[in-house]
């Protein structure tokens, strides 16, 4: 269990983490989603007792991270970003070293168990410097799992892995999430959607949204946008739609690939029938007319946007479209 209340980390005037409040429950995977520099790592560092918060409290595995730092560290497994390891040690001796510091009995046996679990048993006697990036990531994970901690905190565990390793790691995260409190960070949206029971979207140090991927999607798809495709001149078709009375002052944008995005100003109106009717009457060949699927990616971009709304809408729609075609 991780309970964070109004956690803040201030560097001079700059708030790296600002008033962050959330709960990560046992048996769940909680995903920390945000662009680089959003404050994910800083928050995790505070939760692992590496650095103290400026204000606010965090209770990890039942202990306050500030007052009972050692108790927290006993119960947390932490995989830092970039997976710092001792390159000259062998995989096994590294785990034994960490295990000895943690005071684990039968540390040799335990090290082999964990190595076996992350699929590195055959590389137990290899020097860490000879391992691939993916293997090193797994050594880092083995280090975090060594003492079978209540709470696992993994900072960008899939970064730098090949697609196959990413899938493997995601399924491992899901599995570990069943009997641990698991908090992991990522800036890959699809990953959060696939793996997490709860997603926390963070940007510029503050939480922008949190909830299950499904709940976030439902929340955001109200008053959803419509994507239309026509054969021929998209601009002309857009002009026709703009002139419609029933659309209710919708914003109509034409994408680079010719798709037309219609955003109704009133969420309760579904203007699809009217649009289809008018467009066909005008002799424009309608190919496609459907609600624009809202996925985590779009929610994320919506919540974390820094550029003008227009630009982002176009980009987002293009990305979404591209992904759907690809899949």
């Amino acid at each position, binding site marked *: 269990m991780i309970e964070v209340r109004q956690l803040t980390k201030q560097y001079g005037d700059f708030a790296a983490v600002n008033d962050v409040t959330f709960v990560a429950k046992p048996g769940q995977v909680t995903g920390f989603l945000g662009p680089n520099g959003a404050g994910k790592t800083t928050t995790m*560092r505070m939760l*692992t*007792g*590496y*650095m*103290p918060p400026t204000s606010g409290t965090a209770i990890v595995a039942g202990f306050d991270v500030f007052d009972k730092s*050692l*108790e927290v*560290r*006993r119960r*947390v497994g*932490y995989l*830092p970003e*970039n997976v*710092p*390891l*001792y*390159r*000259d*040690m062998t995989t096994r001796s590294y785990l034994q*070293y*960490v295990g*000895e*510091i*943690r*005071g*684990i*009995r*039968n540390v040799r046996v*335990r090290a082999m*168990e*964990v190595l*076996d*679990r992350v699929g590195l048993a055959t590389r137990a006697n290899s020097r860490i410097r000879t391992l691939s990036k993916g293997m090193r990531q797994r050594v880092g994970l083995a*280090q975090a*799992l*060594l*003492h*079978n901690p209540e709470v696992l905190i993994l900072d960008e565990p899939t970064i730098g892995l090949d697609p196959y390793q990413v899938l493997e790691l995601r399924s491992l995260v899901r*599995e570990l999430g069943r*009997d641990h409190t698991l908090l992991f960070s990522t800036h890959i949206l699809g990953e959060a959607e696939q793996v997490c029971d709860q997603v926390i979207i963070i940007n510029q140090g503050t939480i922008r949204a949190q909830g299950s991927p499904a709940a976030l999607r439902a929340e955001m798809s109200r008053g959803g946008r419509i994507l239309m495709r026509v054969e021929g001149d998209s601009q002309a078709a857009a002009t026709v739609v703009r002139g419609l009375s029933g659309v209710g002052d919708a914003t109509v944008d034409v994408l680079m690939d010719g798709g037309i995005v219609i955003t109704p100003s009133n969420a309760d109106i579904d203007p699809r029938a009217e649009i289809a009717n008018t467009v066909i009457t005008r002799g424009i060949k309608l190919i496609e007319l459907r609600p624009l699927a809202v996925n985590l990616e779009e929610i994320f971009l919506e919540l974390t946007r820094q550029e003008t709304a227009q630009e982002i809408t176009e980009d987002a729609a293009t990305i979404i479209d591209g992904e759907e075609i690809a899949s």
Partner: protein
Amino acid sequence: MTDQSVHIETHEALSREVQTGASFPFWAVFKRELGLYFRSPIAYAIAFAIMFFLGVLINGYLSQGNQQAPADSTYAPLLLVFLLFLIAPLLTMRLLSEEAREGTLEVLMTLPMHESQFIIGKFLAAWAYFTVLLALTLVYHLIMLTVGVPDLGQAFGAYVGAWLYGGAVIAVCMIWTAVTEDQIVAAFLSAATVLVLYLAEIAAIFISSQNPRLAEFVRELGLQAHYNGTLSVGIVRGQDILYFILLIVGALFITTRIVETRRWRA
């Protein structure tokens, strides 16, 4: 199917309650660091250079002495103590700088141990290596025994003194390796600090005519006042032992505090 069952077994093994007992983190750190010294070429290079240098000098001393000078076993520890401004920075420069630069310090600092534990572990490893180096020079005592009758009390004082002296200098060098992530900078600043402490006695001579009290104070601060002419000739004074112990404890305390402030800066 077999794969499946194996998988489930390992998973159960993984989530089994892990037994933990009393832990002495500094001991684990000490073992690792000492092992690193004996597996790295630099430790052997230092030992070779020192022994070669001492060998040449002592050979010259023996041949010049030509059975007229007394057999003196303090020659080797005295030289080693002088060379500490080179040896100690080489031994300590990577101890904390490297951990900070590689990011492994973050892992250490999120393990359940106080900073002082790994700092003491690392310090003891460096001191242990120095102890081995010092023990190697005992060979010259054996050589002296074959050519004459060296004063045993004097030799004992010189060796115990050099051992404490080495510990104090290594502890002082630890401070700089905690301050900077750059090993070269750490080594350079360490060497400069050790030289200043070594030369304090000479500085004291310069200012003694203007301000004898200040001169005495500066002299007492320096390393030489507590070794040269006291321990090195077999005079074991409590104040000298206390000076070295205080230097070790003080320097390690400062190092710990510097590493602690990393939490606030990081």
